[in-house]
Structure formats: C-alpha cells, structure tokens
C-alpha cells in the first residue's frame, strides 16, 4: 500500500490580486510503514501538501492515490472523501483548540460516530484511544476537556483522531508550545502510536533536532516543490544547501562538522546527539587505548510512565 502523489499543483486565491502558487508540481510516494518527517520554512507549501492527503483541498491539477482511494480534479467524479478521512487521520497544530464537547468521552467519540459505527464499537474505540494516548479512561472520561492541563488536552485531541483508527497519521507541529517534558512525552507517544495503531506516520516539524529522533526519511519543501527526499543520514550531507534556504541543521550535525573541519576523525553519519556521542567516544578510545570508555553511552532522558514509553528508539533504517 502506498500514497502516490503525481504532479500536484495548487494555487491560492486564483485569478485575484492575492494569487499565490503554493505547490508547483509535487511528486512523492509514501510507503506503508514510513516514518516521514517533513520540513520547510513558513510558506514552503508543506501544510498545503499534507492537507491534500486528507482531502481538505479540492484537487486543482495532478493525481493523488491514498491506499487505492483515488482523488482526481474531475468535477463529475466524486472522490470517496468519507473513506479517505477514515484512512488518513490529521492532527492539526494546537489540536487542543478543536476540543468542543463537554466531556472527554464525547469529544473522542465524535470522529468514530461520524463514521457511522454502532454505539458499542464507538465506545470500544474511545476507550482504547484514550488508553493508547496514555490517559486513564475511567478517571478522565467524564471530565470536561477544558479543565485538563495543556499536555492532557493535546492527548485527548490526538485520541479523537486515533479513535477513527487511521492507517496513516499526520501531525502538524505536534510539540509546538509544549515544555521540554511535554515535548518528550508527545514524541514517545507518536512512536508508540505508530507501533500500536497507525503504521504510517507523517510529521511536520520546525525542529530538526526533534525530527532526527524518529523519522527514517525526510522530505524538504522549498518554494512549493520537493527539494530533497532522502533517508535521514543522507540528508544532512547537504547542510550548506539547507542553510541556504533558511533551514537549520541539527546541532549534532553542526558540531560534527566543526570537529571534522579541525581534523578530528569521526566515523559514520552523524545525525542525532546519540550518534555524535558514540562517534566521539569511538574516536576517544582509539587515542586513549589505556583508559577506554564505554561505547554504548546514551543520553539519560526523562523517565516516563510505562504505558507510553514503549519505544525502542531504534526505528531508523
């Protein structure tokens, strides 16, 4: 199963003074099981692109095929949007602003109810979704979403999408505005959801340091086009080109670059801080044979509740 996008163009406010072409001939294939990161600066077209995958824009030109659901610009043929939205779950930026019901349970049930599922199936899915995002179902189901903390609200909003059991989960800036701990929790939640619920995950992020933690493949948008589509370890060999279009590179890549420029030999592709740490230790051990250091160093991150920490962190290809 695949998502295939062919020659996708999109123009906002066509034939007005505000006309702006946001997508210019985008071609992209996303495979089932991909953990795809999308980066690009503001206005690069990345959000317009993902909204197409969920049928939020009418196709202007090009073709989209999402797991055999075909979207075409033809006005006479109706695309099967209901089935598409059950297949692709979309979590917008600041999804907690979308909560509207008076209890958590009702809010999470909104999506599956609209899919026309029977009451029993709906409540089964709601319970599972709430548990999947690491909340206590019995404790939280009757509470008003508005009395929850920011991080809890975001989880409830994500549960509302998960309850539709989408095969593809798309998240737009899922950690925006959270504190460091909240960020870590959401990141491990996403990895957990990929494993337990939605095998294909697409994440938009501004934070390259964050994206290096999970994605196996990164697509870079620039000026409405796909500029790069590479496995993570290859992408950051193009650091200068990324910098030229206003994108940051991960700190670990930057530090590794500086060390190499000054003649330090570091092995392998360095993308994450753990890669850098490992390479430094290996280089150190070569020079200091007499007192070597454990090569399996890892950053001690936060400790989480067991139910959401089911990550091995080694999802990269």
């Amino acid at each position, binding site marked *: 199963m695949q998502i295939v996008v062919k020659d996708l163009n999109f123009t906002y406010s066509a034939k007005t003074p505000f006309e702006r072409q946001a997508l210019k001939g985008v071609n992209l294939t996303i495979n089932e099981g991909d953990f795809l990161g999308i980066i690009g600066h503001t206005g690069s077209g990345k959000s317009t692109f993902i909204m197409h995958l969920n049928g939020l824009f009418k196709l202007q030109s090009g073709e989209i095929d999402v797991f055999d659901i075909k979207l075409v610009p033809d006005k006479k043929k109706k695309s099967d949007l209901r089935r598409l939205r059950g297949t692709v779950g979309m979590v917008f930026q600041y999804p907690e602003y979308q909560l509207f019901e008076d209890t958590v349970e009702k809010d999470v049930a909104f999506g599956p109810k609209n899919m026309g599922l029977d009451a029993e199936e709906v409540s089964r899915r709601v319970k599972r979704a709430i548990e999947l995002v690491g909340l206590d179902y019995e404790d939280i189901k009757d509470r008003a979403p508005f009395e929850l903390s920011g991080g809890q609200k975001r989880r409830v909003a994500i549960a509302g999408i998960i309850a539709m059991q989408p095969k593809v989960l798309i998240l737009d800036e899922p950690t925006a505005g959270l504190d460091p701990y909240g960020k870590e929790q959401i990141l491990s939640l996403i990895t957990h959801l990929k494993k337990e619920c939605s095998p294909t995950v697409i994440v938009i992020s501004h934070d390259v340091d964050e994206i290096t933690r999970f994605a196996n493949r990164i697509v870079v948008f620039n000026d409405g086009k796909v500029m790069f589509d590479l496995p993570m370890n290859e992408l950051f060999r193009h650091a200068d080109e990324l910098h030229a279009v*206003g994108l940051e590179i991960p700190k670990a890549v930057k530090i590794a670059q500086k060390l190499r420029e000054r*003649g*330090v*030999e570091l092995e392998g592709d360095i993308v994450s801080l753990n890669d850098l740490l490992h390479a430094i*230790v290996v280089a150190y051990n070569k020079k200091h044979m007499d007192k070597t250091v454990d090569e399996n160093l890892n950053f001690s991150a936060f400790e989480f509740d067991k139910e959401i920490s089911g990550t091995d962190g080694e999802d990269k290809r």
Partner: protein
Amino acid sequence: MAIPAIKLDNVSFSYPVSEGAEQKAVSGVSLEIEEGTFVALVGHNGSGKSTLAKLLNGLLVPTSGRVLVYGVDTADDKKIYDVRSSVGMVFQNPDNQMIATNVEDDIAFGPENLGVPREEIIKRVDWALEKVGMSQFRHATPFKMSGGQKQRLAIAGVLAIKPRVMVLDESTAMLDPKGRDEVMQVVKQLNREEKMTVVHITHYMDEALEADRLIVMNDGRIMLDGKPADVFAEHKLLTKIKLGVPCVTQLAVTLSEAGIAVDPRITDEEALVDSLCKLL
C-alpha cells in the same frame, strides 16, 4: 544602592478554583531584579512562571506579600498606571495583541491611551519601529505578516509606552526558528543599547543561555537562581523537575560522567569543540 527595577517580597498567589477552594500558583517568592539585567525564567508547565510574570505589572496582585516596581506597590490602585507604564508585557500569541488594521495605529494604541501628545506619539512610533527593524512596514497590515514579524510588532507596541522593564511570556513559543531568532536579536539589542530590563520566560534552554541571570521555578517557588552556566551545572536536578539542559551542556555532561576530561560546565559550542579537539 539604587532601587531594584522589581522587588518581590515574600509573594504568594492563589487562583480561586471553586467556592472556598483555591490553588496555590506562587508560594513565598522573594526576588530582586536589578535595572538593566536580562533575566530568563524557566519552569515546566504549571510551575508558576506565567503567574509570576503577571504579578510583575499588576495584572495579578499578590494574595500575600508585596511586589514593588521601582518602589511602587502594584497593589496600590492609584498607581497602577505608573506600574503598567514601567513594565510592558509581550504575550505568547501575537495575534491576541494586535488591535488595529495597520502597523502605525497598532503601535500608537498604547501611548494614545496614556494621553501622550500627537507629536510625541509620531516620534515614538518611528523610534519603536526602528528598534525592532520594521520601519518599512509602517503602513502595512499586521495580518499578512509572519509570526516573527508580528511578534516584533507586538514588541514595538510595548516599546511605544517607553517601559523600563519588558516581560516576555513565552513570546517565542509559537514561532519558527527564524522568527524566534528575530525576536531574540531584537530583545538582546534593547537590553544592550537601551539598558532595558528584560524578563524572558521560555521553554527553550538555548535562549535561557543568553541571559545574564537564569531563574528556575518549580512548584510555585524559585528553585535555582544564578548565572546560566551555574544553573545548568545542576543538570540532574533540572531533569528531575522535568526541564532539560541545552544540548552542548548535555553533551559535555555525558562525556564528563563517562570519564572523558571535558568540563561539564561548558555551555558554548565553540568551547566544546575546542576542548574536544585537544582530546581527539
């Protein structure tokens, strides 16, 4: 000694939750901020840092204790305008702070409300726009701008009131890296050139590094307070209260703990690269 810009004297604040019940957000905080310092304030969600920010210009008044802004008590109703003109606030979402349809009017709003004469307002608008590097947008509309531009505009709006202290309550949280950098540059420049006292509340530890002084809040209290390098040296404590340390420090600390002779207090990337080059 000159009077501190801001002085908190055993300040506590509780939010009323329901009839008779309340939730304590700040407990017994005492603090002095000298004029001209750049203070960063960090803490996880719910640590009380935003409540503390709102106490600094009388948006909230302490349940007990006193907040003095240049010696003026924020609980004194008659002097609240003095307090608000001394301490300007920039919030998280710039859209919530925009009130006019063009840039000029938006910036003039503050001084107009303070009854500043027209000629002076025009001067201030020019000056404020120049300070945030947005002079060419004078007649533009804020609604079509990028997040970083909008936030710089919000800062200009606060500047036009000519405050002596600026409080930024997670003003970089919603911005992309470029926008964040724009805002930080403007704030640092105001601190340096105008001797503006800055209290910057942030989740980004790399931003906190750039301050003169770093205050860590936890559970409504001040847990650590000192130079950023000294505060980040307490990385274990910081992780325990759900905060991180900047990635250079994280790297230095991990290497040093593994037995490699790197100073765990390094916060600067160049310094880390230098010391690694000597070892490798």
